[in-house]
């Protein structure tokens, strides 16, 4: 039942939001809806309610497709991440004001329903449905409330992902006709025996769809522009949650469906990912706009995760699992800080900022913690994930680990440079007028800081949660 609630609550809540015309009420309502979703998820986790984690209803029997939802370890983790991020996103952007707020918050909640659906769907066609449905609200959100170049930029993003997902649809259809019982259910699709040749081209049909979403080099060109142009609340959804769709899809669909092809092409995928890590890190160093900096740093982090998914050993997979969650939390923290800075000082350019530490000590401390987590310093959550992933990469091939490891150093360079430029140095006219953050904003960031440290010190629950997914994938490869 929980599985269904996680989709239904934001879906219905979102539809209702369209009719709440007043801004403050729309904000409050959507916040409450997101809290209810979080509550449903938390209760499920605390009660260890395994039965509530799957749900099946008849949908399209003639097509062999049913409304089947199922949470395994990785999807439980990501559902929790989604339901946790939404209240934080809403509360941290509380002060932002949007034209026609009812549509904005309504679409945000619909996007949540779509994203959660992707994490839950245990039926190929249903998965495709949610995959597209998550995109539509985000398209409208970015195009309507984004920056100056929003229309063209968002459109590029949309077309990229749409081509990718249509190719996946063709692959899915082909798979469907190979199943024994003409069904889209995950079990039937997993059971299909494909020849090496079939696997190798189906693999690419699926991989392109997921690679665009993650994004993996060279499919990443939509990402920095879209992150920059979107309103920050949407950027948070995009980078903390939507990129996880691509990674999760690799875990749930790509690897179990085409294990042979995954082994065959592992060098290409990991190679692209490592190139992306270095390339994005170098670009991140040259950015002046903090939003673009984080966008590129996000590509670098995702690159490591996508490489780790293909190394075919426990360490890499386990690291990727924990990093799915950690990256979501950390990048969300970064965006919150950026949002706060932009709203206070009216700019995101590092060259125009400086000396914030004196004016806003609270903000500074929180940012430094989040930024260090981004660099994967020990004691922070990202350290565990990245350590395991590099370990896995090392076992796979030492050269990938060596080259990829450079990105950690580079990430320290650009993160610390950002801290230095924004918070230290001399004040200027723009920054002299600022004030520190208030308690609501502190609370949002505090949740993130707590998550960073708790998981950095005690990651065991996450490992336990995701063991089944890791075992599944390792089992497929044997």
């Amino acid at each position, binding site marked *: 039942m929980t599985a269904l609630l996680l989709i239904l609550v934001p879906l219905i809540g979102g539809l209702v939001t369209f009719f709440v015309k007043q801004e403050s009420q729309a904000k409050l309502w959507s916040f409450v809806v997101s809290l209810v979703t979080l509550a449903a998820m938390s209760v499920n986790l605390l009660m260890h309610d395994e039965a509530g984690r799957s749900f099946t209803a008849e949908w*399209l029997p003639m097509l062999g497709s049913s409304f089947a939802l199922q949470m395994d370890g990785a999807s439980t983790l990501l559902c929790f991440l989604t339901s946790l991020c939404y209240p934080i996103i809403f509360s941290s952007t509380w002060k932002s004001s949007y034209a026609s707020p009812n549509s904005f918050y309504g679409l945000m909640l619909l996007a949540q329903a779509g994203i959660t659906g992707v994490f839950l769907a245990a039926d190929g066609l249903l998965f495709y449905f949610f995959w597209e449905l998550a995109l539509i609200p985000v398209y*409208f959100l970015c195009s309507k409330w984004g920056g100056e170049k929003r229309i063209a930029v968002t459109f590029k993003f949309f*077309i990229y992902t749409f*081509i990718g997902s*249509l190719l996946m*649809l*063709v692959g899915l*259809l082909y798979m469907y006709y190979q199943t024994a019982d003409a069904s889209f259910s995950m079990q039937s699709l997993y059971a299909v025996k494909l020849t090496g040749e079939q696997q190798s081209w189906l693999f690419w049909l699926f991989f392109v769809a997921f690679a665009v979403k993650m994004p993996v080099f060279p499919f990443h060109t939509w990402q920095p522009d879209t992150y920059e142009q979107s309103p920050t609340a949407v950027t948070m959804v995009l980078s903390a949650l939507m990129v996880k769709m691509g990674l999760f899809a690799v875990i749930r669909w790509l690897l179990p469906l085409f294990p042979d092809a995954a082994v065959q092409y592992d060098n290409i995928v990991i190679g692209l990912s490592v190139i992306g890590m270095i390339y994005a890190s170098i670009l991140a160093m040259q950015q002046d706009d903090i939003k673009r900096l984080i966008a590129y740093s996000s590509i670098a982090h995702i690159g490591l995760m996508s490489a780790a998914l293909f190394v075919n050993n426990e360490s890499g997979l386990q690291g990727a699992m924990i990093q799915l969650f950690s990256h979501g939390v950390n990048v969300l923290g970064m965006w919150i800080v950026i949002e706060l800075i932009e709203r206070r000082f009216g700019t995101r350019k590092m060259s125009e900022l400086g000396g914030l530490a004196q004016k806003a000590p609270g903000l500074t401390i929180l940012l430094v913690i989040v930024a260090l987590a981004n660099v994967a310093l020990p004691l922070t959550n990202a350290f565990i994930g990245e350590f395991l992933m590099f370990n896995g990469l090392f076992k796979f091939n030492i050269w990938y680990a060596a080259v990829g490891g450079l990105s950690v150093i580079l990430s320290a360079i650009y993160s610390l440079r950002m801290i230095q430029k924004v918070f230290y140095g001399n004040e200027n006219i723009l920054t002299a007028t600022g004030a520190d953050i208030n308690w609501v904003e502190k609370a949002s960031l505090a949740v993130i800081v707590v998550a960073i440290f708790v998981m950095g010190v005690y990651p065991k629950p996450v490992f336990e949660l995701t063991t089944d997914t890791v075992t599944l994938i390792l089992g497929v490869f044997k």
Partner: protein
Amino acid sequence: MNLILISAIWGIVMMFSGLFLKSKSSAKTVALIGSIALLIGNFFDLSGKMIINSNFNGMLQYERFGLLFLTVLVLALIMYILLSGKDVEAVGNHPFEYFALIFFVMSGAGLVALFNNLLILFIGIEIISIPLYILTGSDKRNLKGNEAALKYFLMGSFSTGIMLMGIAFLYGATGSFQLEQLMLQPQEDYKIFMLIGIVMIMVALAFKVSAAPFHFWTPDVYDGAPTVFTSFMATIVKAAVFIGFVNLFANAFGNKTGNWQMTVAIITTLTLFIGNITAVYQQSVKRMLAYSSIAQAGFMMFAVFAINDMAKQGLLLYAAAYCFATIGIFAVLVKMKDYTFDGFNGLAKKQPLVALVLTVCLLSLAGIPLTAGFFAKYFVLAAAVKTGTYLWLVIFAVVMAAVSVYYYFRVIQAMYFKEGEGQEMLITVPFKALLVTVAAVVILLGVYPSLLLNWLTLF
């Protein structure tokens, strides 16, 4: 049979009621009554109760698929009359005649959907075509309309000639016009006649459904004709010809796929490519919709290409999805003065509900999930994948579907994201309610396509 009879009779009734009813605005009402009679007649057709219960020595066949297809067409016609009836009346001084011609087209559609003999197919296609030549030129003071009508007439007659020639060749090869006779293998010497016949008929029908490279008339005719009639031609008529196309190739040439499937694949590829790529460069929404109708025909060609159960279901769904969405868009377009993309700027502020319905329709044409258009595309593509060959064609089609997003979304962008006044439009409350119905149907079929497809097996 009921539907063919009623629509022919009602066409005559419409003409004569023009003599007795003086008020122009009663035309829509009479037409509406007629279309509802068609629906009822069709319903009795489906349940096997016919006024004249005969298949005329095997010249007609009452296949459930064809009958259900007609139901979809009649429903689309009702929606068309409800939404655009007023605008038909506004075209010229003879509203009753326009509606009469529309009913004649419907009776032709009935023949094309149920034929079992090449002569019936030919007569049906002609009954559909001739009224259209007149409707295209019905705004007789419009130069563009006149040019379009003449062009359409000349080229249309030419393609009809080719079709007749093809039928003659087939007769020469097999000695019969009956479809089941055509299924038999001709004698070795006559095989070449058979092949020539198939290709000629294919060319003629490809012309009628505006498949490339026989599409050149489409943009000019659709653009030149009064917009209400463009709506009718691009939807109901096109779908009607497609059912004939599919029925013919399934029932007469289904066992010779090796001979013609490659040709159909090439036509499909060209149609998709030309339709989609040219639509991208249009500045007028009406012309964009003309090219979009070519592009959509490319997807419907998949049903001809695959000819299996999935393809038939797909065509049925495609016709419903495409007709309803396109009729909805045209109904709004007719009411606008400025047909350019910029004319849609700021519409969402001025008419939020209309903009929302247009968005749903456009998303459906683009084939986004949760709309009928998705399942329509899904079924025809699945049918092609099922044949197991020509997978490149399917991949090419989905890439073209992604291209189509570009021009459909341009309208959405203009309505929602661009600044503008929004045009003045006369939108009444019943009109809004009907638009909402269109959107509801599109979404309902997008969630539960079985609502329509289950009828194939009911009764």
